[in-house]
């Protein structure tokens, strides 16, 4: 066989092999991708469609196109003459949730950064221990952690009881069922979500840069601000998103710690599917939340294209 013949046979073999790999890959990938497509991506698309439909009388939808859900979001329709009046009630819920999520993210960062930094600079064995200590609460049931917080801070709970018995206060401090209580609960639940990605980023930081900066007469805080923070930037963005996104759509903390009095986005959406039974409006509220989340994710993707640090 001449050399071109051999080359031809080889390319043919390569092609057969490539096809086989392709087939195997498709088989391996399809269960996970199909499941997520059918039971998450498709449902999300349906939610978008539903947000443009008319609510049915007993829940569900009537297949008539309508912008009513989005109009209802901004305006109040007068019951008698059908005129629209601007009403900020729902906007306020979104604004309140946004502020709550933002404050949670900032406080988590202020506590989380020193913690992550301290752990990352420990010797190997201690580091391993500490990361486990932070990882464990990360995976513990949100519901139970929120209940534990509620239990602790109630008016008649152990915290107030202890403070009263040592004479620090005369009456219980009201923390539960306030905005502060909800914030505390959110910080409590999402703090590990901040520490772990920050830790991952700081651990990869090259501390010889710190030595170099000292050699150039920079002081400690200048180094932190100008060298460390910018270089662990992607980790900071990842941590902030991991706190911000779930806080924005949180349901358990406002429900249990806020006593369901001040609605947040999560509770507003839940209500439309449980109590009020206005599915199109609930879908619209969810679509708006998703849009906010997508905007936040865009920030992350732009950051990530600059430097590669994984979100997880």
């Amino acid at each position, binding site marked *: 066989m001449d050399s071109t013949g051999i080359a031809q046979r080889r390319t043919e073999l390569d092609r057969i092999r490539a096809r086989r790999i392709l087939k195997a890959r498709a088989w391996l990938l399809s269960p996970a991708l199909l499941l997520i497509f059918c039971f998450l991506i498709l449902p999300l698309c349906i939610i978008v469609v539903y947000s443009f439909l008319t609510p049915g009388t007993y829940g569900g939808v009537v297949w008539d196109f309508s912008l009513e859900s989005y109009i209802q979001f901004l305006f109040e329709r007068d019951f008698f003459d059908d005129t629209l009046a601007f009403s900020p009630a729902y906007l306020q819920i979104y604004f309140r949730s946004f502020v709550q999520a933002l404050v949670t993210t900032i406080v988590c960062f202020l506590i989380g950064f020193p913690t992550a930094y301290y*752990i990352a600079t420990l010797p190997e064995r201690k580091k391993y221990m500490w990361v486990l200590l932070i990882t464990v609460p990360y995976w513990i049931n949100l519901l*139970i952690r929120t209940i534990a917080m509620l239990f602790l801070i109630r008016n008649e709970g152990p915290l107030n009881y202890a403070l009263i018995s040592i004479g620090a206060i005369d009456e219980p401090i009201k923390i539960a069922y306030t905005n502060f209580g909800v914030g505390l609960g959110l910080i409590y639940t999402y703090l590990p979500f901040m520490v772990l990605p920050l830790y991952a980023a700081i651990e990869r930081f090259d501390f010889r840069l710190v030595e170099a900066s000292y050699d150039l007469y920079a002081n400690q805080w200048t180094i932190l601000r100008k060298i460390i923070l910018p270089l662990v930037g992607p980790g900071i963005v990842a941590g902030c998103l991991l706190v911000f996104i779930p806080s924005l759509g949180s349901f358990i903390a406002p429900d249990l710690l806020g006593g369901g009095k001040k609605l947040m986005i999560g509770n507003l959406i839940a209500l439309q599917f449980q109590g009020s039974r206005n599915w199109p409006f609930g879908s619209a509220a969810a679509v708006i*939340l998703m849009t906010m989340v997508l905007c936040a994710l865009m920030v992350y993707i732009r950051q990530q294209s600059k430097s590669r640090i994984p979100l997880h």
Partner: protein
Amino acid sequence: MNPTRDLKRYPGFGGITWACLVFLYGPLIVIALYSFNEIRSITVWGGFSFSWYVKAFNNDLIQRATYNSLIIAVSAATASTICATAAALAILRNRAFRGREASIGIISLPLMVPEIVTAIASLVFFVLVGIPLGIGSILLAHTVFCIPFAYLPITARLEGIEGHYEEAARDLYADSWQTFRYVMLPMMFPGIVAGFMLAFIISLDDFIITNFVAGPGATTLPLAIYGLVRTGLTPEINAVSTLLLLVSIFFVTLSYLLGKKPGPGR
């Protein structure tokens, strides 16, 4: 000692770290302590007792919910771990192919969408398609949601295994199934177990999604606990919560120790 150690230190960082630890564990320890409180009071300490655990064990609702939760968690974790293992093999064993990034994106999608949105989207979908709400719908929703959680430790493990092993197996005339069964699977096993355990606790613990897709009949443990909390905090809740806490701590620690290297689990 390494002279750079001192340069790295910032005043107060150690203190904040310890405060953070107290903050994270304080409420959990308090709730665990009070579950052993002899008297019904949830404020005053009245002596040590296991009575609330006994009471919780004998509660019909809690028994049924625990049974449901375990069945769902084991099935969902098994299904999602199989899917995640297959996907991890396809994605990591083929360095570059079209749609690789997209596949990774789709698999991590359940982590990006706020849980409340996933919950109502699943509900709407099940109702529209006509899948009856109950154990089956919970199982489906959990399987989907658990895939990324199982996927991460498995890929972390697989990334540490070099391609030579597979090539060597092929050179020795192993077919692709034998390569997987006798070469890859034993090496991937710790990662697969870690993935299974994370998926298991995620499913066992899930409240929001379950709350929407459960329908009227089916109750899981978190749903039962939530129902009890709505009517008021009791030491019984503390007891059940403490047990669930211990289960989570056990599985997370085990999964962490099985992991490839010290680092964040997710």
